[in-house]
């Protein structure tokens, strides 16, 4: 689907229940993509700071959210393993 078409359909407010449920699934999808991208970035050797910059949040925020959620086999320097 072309991007403008996606935007029109996702922003369609004529059926709010369908729209709200779609947004809820979309949120889950976005969170899942974000987690996978953070893991990929750490595997590629990016630092928490670089990941935070790319996401537009603080380093503390991204570390707090993902430090314990990522694949524990990823070797992250100074990651809290408790």
């Amino acid at each position, binding site marked *: 689907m072309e991007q403008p078409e996606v935007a029109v359909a996702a922003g*369609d407010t004529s059926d709010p229940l369908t729209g709200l449920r*779609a*947004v*809820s699934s*979309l949120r889950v999808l976005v969170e*899942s993509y974000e*987690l996978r991208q953070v893991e990929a970035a750490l595997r590629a050797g990016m630092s928490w700071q670089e990941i935070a910059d790319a996401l537009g949040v603080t380093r503390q925020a991204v570390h707090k959210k993902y430090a314990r959620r990522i694949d524990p086999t990823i070797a992250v320097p100074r990651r809290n393993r408790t």
Partner: protein
Amino acid sequence: MSRLTDAVVLSQQIVVTATEEAYRVGHAELELDDLLVALTAVGGPAGDVLRSLGVTVDRARSAVAQVHADRLARAGVPAPPAQPRTLPRTGGGLPWSPRADRVLTAGQWDLRLVDDRRILRDLVREPSGFVAEVLAVLGLDAEGVLTALDAWVPTATAPSGALFSPDPRPWRTVTRRGWVPAAPAEVWSLVTDPARRTAWDPWYSAVEERADGVLAATLVGEAEGAKPVPPGFERQEVVPVAREEGRLVEWELRRPDRPGGAPVQRLAVALTPSGGGTRVDLTVRWLGVGGWRAVVGLLLRPVARLAWGQMLLAKHAGIARALR
């Protein structure tokens, strides 16, 4: 085990399984869909009811994925299905989403609700309607599921034989029961294959079968992110002492670097076909030691029994994880 212990063990298994499911599909939080899949994967009454309605682990997973895909498609967002992630050796915790938290914690202190049907009822009635949508994809309606939950009667499967081999010595014994969504033959080939031991037994980082049939095992330690193992405990010999083909296997655990200095320990796995899967009874037993250690052992016995119970649950979770 008492009904209350059963209930505590079952809720622990549900949370562990749901957390692993959330990890597998890449959720950042434990969600309602993870709880629904977990109910089909643990051997509780809710899973019995769902299986009697044709809902297996795989069908529940694909119905959940279908609901998300349909919702997104209706909103015009194409979402290619993501590949499941490989579970790590040791699971960490995940936060619970607010709605999963409500379902898990509502009524948890009501001791009349000692089985997981409460969780499924709350999932079905949950106001976002997500689980009702999943049930619709599975060709079920919410009322039908609630009626089946009310009509459920216990059909406990007794173990098909002894849980460990006969031995007259004064063993101290701890048993934990579990259920896995796989046929007994599959469970048997997993637990008796030395090459797959590390896939389910969280104790060992490496296991090799020697020519005499004894398994030479290395305990997990710092290299695997676990606690350091004290000197003399790293190596363990896992000696088969009993085997009833397809039903019972038992090993004695020895520490070759501490001859005579460690209590005798055994681990038994007994399998019984049950409800389209397998009832797995895990038993650890040990012989007490003499001298001052007997006194300490007596004082610490409740703590030791709790610790052994937790160890068995971790092994059971490993078996279930390897077969899901």
